[in-house]
């Protein structure tokens, strides 16, 4: 028979005021299995805890019930206290006599009767508690970062600086992502390449970081601390170990195709480095463009390569590696505005460009060496119109959300144009101007002082008349339609999730929201974590944001990863499900309902009568199970049970209530 100790707390007057604590302690003495019961002014205080410990020794108690405040307050305190005694910390139940009894009732007699009832239920439950010990799972001290933009680079650098191995998987031939394409960054106007290329070089040179460019995640197995990831390396046709990056092959390559890096505004060769400061600064061959690979002609690069690093027979390679934690940093892409807005010309007019294309134009390493010119005739534009919220905040034609960064980079573009082109005029059509950061509002004020003309209204139509682009819109402040004859139009297009993010998310077993942004565990309290333990996210893959937020999220994700990798093992909560495999019929319905995919069907040796057979039964992965208990109610046989809240405990609690 259990020897239960019941300790009723006065909590000063919080409980004692409306609950007759002595009467409750007295009543507890006669409950089944109770060996000792008393009340005390402050159970959670040092003397209170000491008094409990003494009672445990003195009365040889083996289970404890404490009638006090909510278990959500001091359950951990009392469990820590029990760690110092011979009683397992999980042989403890707390009756909520304060928040759900004393504070919410006035009639002392009824409140006391309810308090006794609550203690009865706690006693009935604790009688059925089983001693639980936390188990541990080993941690592989390596991290994987998916995505090589500024988010992935920053996270990788922080983790590597903490002394852990990091692999960056990037599907483009170089890391750097979108940030390295930009010219200046708001609000400080420092040059984007000057602050991101050093980080790229650090990442490339860091002893703890391995760069896997032109690679994609193929398969992910395992769970926190023990991820097994297969990485697919696309054929590069250039042996990067031999290649010194001399660039001779690039100069001699005859084929010219549009450069994705320069947003289609310049050409690149088939064997190419995306841009000068690419890391790794070694070329790859574009299989669709290369004459050798498509028509088996040319082959100049192989001939002139001093080291013979070219290998046309290169194939896709798969490598499988172990990781303890994963950071998703897949970034964003701009929406295809040509499909969404045919009324802006649908791409017919060369001088209607996106913000990213303008960044390449104004960039010194861009196709026009930083001269802002019209892609159509190369002339310097005098009148430029910037249209904001193209695709954002437009549920009918585009996305419902605001893309957060365009207000600021549009102001930056205006500032750059007014700065670089003497007596130019810039008109910015806007719905609202959002400047949610430090120094942002001042930056916006300066742009207006520079002479940028902000017109509050949307643009309805853009068309070409002669060499001019006619931009028809409205100025809702003066309530009249407005027409601007412009030389160039820059569209601040919406951000959307990077293409291909669906595969990454489904392989990781995490989820996405309706706009394909990766779903964070909790938007306010756990913004860089996902539902699956050990998988984190940072940057624009979670939603539109600017570089300062991206970098701070990268740091946060890195600290979460470091928090895991710091330990050789990870303690798992003992309050998780457990399968009684003798009774399990292997129907698999628990597997389907588990939100964490923590249950799987396994083959185990078993006996059927006298024959040895292999049985299919369910098994819970201790690392993944978070203890929600959904499986216990789905299982008809009741053979999967949740430790700490077993069927037995709850049934006895129900019985105790109704005596």
């Amino acid at each position, binding site marked *: 028979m259990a020897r239960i100790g019941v300790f009723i707390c006065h909590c000063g007057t919080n409980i004692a005021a409306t609950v007759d604590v002595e009467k409750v302690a007295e009543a507890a003495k006669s409950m089944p299995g109770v060996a000792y019961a008393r009340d005390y002014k402050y159970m959670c205080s040092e003397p209170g805890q000491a008094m409990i410990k003494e009672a445990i020794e003195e009365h040889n108690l083996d289970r404890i019930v404490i009638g006090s405040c909510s278990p959500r307050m001091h359950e951990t305190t009392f469990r820590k206290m029990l760690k110092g005694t011979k009683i397992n910390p999980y042989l403890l139940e707390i009756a909520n006599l304060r928040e759900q009894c004393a504070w919410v009732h006035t009639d002392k007699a009824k409140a006391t009767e309810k308090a006794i009832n609550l203690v009865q239920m706690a006693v009935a439950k604790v009688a059925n508690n089983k001693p639980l010990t936390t188990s541990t799972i080993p941690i592989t001290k390596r991290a994987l970062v998916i995505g090589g933009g500024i988010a992935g680079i920053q996270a990788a650098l922080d983790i590597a600086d903490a002394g852990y191995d990091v692999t960056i998987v990037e599907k483009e031939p170089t890391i750097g992502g979108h940030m390295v394409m930009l010219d200046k960054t708001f609000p400080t106007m420092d040059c984007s390449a000057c602050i991101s290329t050093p980080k790229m070089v650090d990442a490339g040179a860091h002893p703890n970081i391995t760069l896997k460019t032109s690679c994609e995640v193929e398969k992910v197995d395992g769970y926190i601390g023990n991820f097994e990831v297969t990485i697919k390396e696309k054929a590069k046709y250039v042996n990067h170990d031999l290649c010194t990056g001399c660039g001779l092959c690039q100069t001699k390559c005859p084929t010219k195709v549009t450069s994705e890096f320069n947003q289609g505004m310049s050409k690149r060769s088939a064997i190419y480095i995306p841009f000068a400061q690419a890391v790794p600064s070694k070329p790859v061959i574009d299989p669709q463009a290369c004459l050798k690979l498509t028509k088996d002609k040319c082959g100049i690069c192989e001939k002139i390569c001093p080291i013979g690093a070219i290998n046309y027979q290169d194939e896709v390679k798969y490598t499988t590696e172990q990781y303890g934690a994963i950071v998703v940093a897949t970034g964003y892409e701009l929406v295809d505005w040509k499909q969404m807005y045919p009324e802006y010309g649908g791409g017919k007019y060369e001088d209607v460009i996106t913000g990213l294309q303008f960044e390449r134009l104004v960039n010194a390493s861009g196709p026009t060496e930083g001269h802002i010119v019209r892609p159509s005739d190369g002339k310097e534009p005098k009148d430029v119109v910037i249209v904001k919220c193209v695709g954002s905040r437009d549920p009918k034609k585009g996305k419902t959300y605001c893309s957060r960064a365009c207000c600021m980079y549009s102001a930056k573009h205006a500032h750059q144009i007014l700065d670089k082109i003497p007596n130019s005029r810039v008109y910015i059509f806007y719905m609202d101007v959002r400047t949610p950061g430090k120094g942002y509002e001042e930056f916006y004020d300066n742009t207006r002082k520079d002479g940028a003309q902000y017109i509050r209204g949307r643009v309805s139509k853009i068309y070409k008349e002669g060499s001019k682009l006619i931009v028809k819109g409205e100025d809702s402040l003066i309530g009249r339609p407005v027409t601007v004859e412009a030389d160039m139009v820059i569209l601040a297009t919406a951000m959307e999730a990077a293409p291909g993010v669906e595969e990454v998310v489904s392989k990781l077993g995490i989820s996405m929201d309706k706009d394909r942004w990766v779903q964070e565990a909790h938007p306010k309290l756990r913004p860089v974590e996902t539902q699956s333990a050990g998988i984190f996210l940072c940057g624009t893959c979670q939603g539109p944001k600017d570089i300062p937020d991206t970098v701070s999220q990268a740091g946060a994700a890195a600290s979460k990863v470091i928090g895991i990798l710091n330990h050789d093992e990870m303690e798992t909560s003992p309050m998780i499900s457990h399968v009684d495999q*003798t*009774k399990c*019929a292997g129907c698999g319905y628990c597997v389907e*309902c588990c939100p964490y995919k923590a249950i799987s069907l396994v083959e185990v040796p078993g006996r059927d009568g006298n*024959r040895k*057979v292999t049985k299919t039964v369910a098994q819970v992965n201790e690392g993944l199970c978070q203890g929600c208990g959904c499986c216990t109610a*789905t299982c*008809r*046989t009741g053979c999967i049970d949740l430790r700490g809240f077993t069927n037995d405990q709850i049934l006895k609690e129900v019985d105790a209530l109704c005596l």
Partner: protein
Amino acid sequence: MAGLTEAQVQDRIREEAKKALASGEVSAVVGWTSTRFEDKTKPYFAETEAECDLLVWNKYCINGTGKFALDDRYPEKKIAIIARGCDSRALNRMLRDKQLKRENLYIIGVVCDGKENAVCEGCQHKNPLTYDVLIGEPVEEQMNAERFKEIEAFEKLTPDQRYEYWAKQYDKCIHCYACRNACPACNCVECYADQYRTGWQGKAADREQNQVYGLTRAFHVGDRCIECGECERVCPMNLPIMRQTKKMLKDINDLFGDYECGLPDDAMPVLGTYKLEDPDEFM
């Protein structure tokens, strides 16, 4: 019987049974055989070619043959089942619950046009849904408009009348668990009711325990019931068990859309999954 008379079907069954046994892959053929009473048949395991000649086919073959496949969960050889529409649904049920493996079954499908059994009137699946060989021409199926008529009628009674009705019924239950043993959806290795230590279910056969058993079984089987009516047929005390499980099926159809179990491509049982756009009454 489309095309074939009962006698011709019977010969075909015996012929198929012999062929199956002859192949050496099948340990036994489960069908029906005649009994002392000419208006009754009993399930029969034919294990030799001679015994195959005892297999019969007439309008008194009413026992379900599907559940017998569960006798041996780890068979060395296949087991052949003479399967009518409802039997094939029973096999599909157990296959979907992963209690049987398709490669352990050799299903001899027989097109049935109803037996001397109350449940056969509304039968929506006269043709077997899964089979390795088919005897008879598939007939045209009709939807049973009155599938839930009995339930709807019962719902119209007042709460007290309904309670009194069920109380009397559950007073009769003797806890023999025949319903559980005959039901293809009741395929657990160890039934919750037998786990006395956890105390889900008391042992007494009084109204209180019987009500809990009746409702728990209705809830366990409700979203997987193939409406074969075996539970009602085998109950020695004639409890209207189907009237409970069919209530669950009716509600499932109302709440979550058309739903029928035992089909070859069975969807996930309703209680094992969810849809975001499910109706919500608890706001």
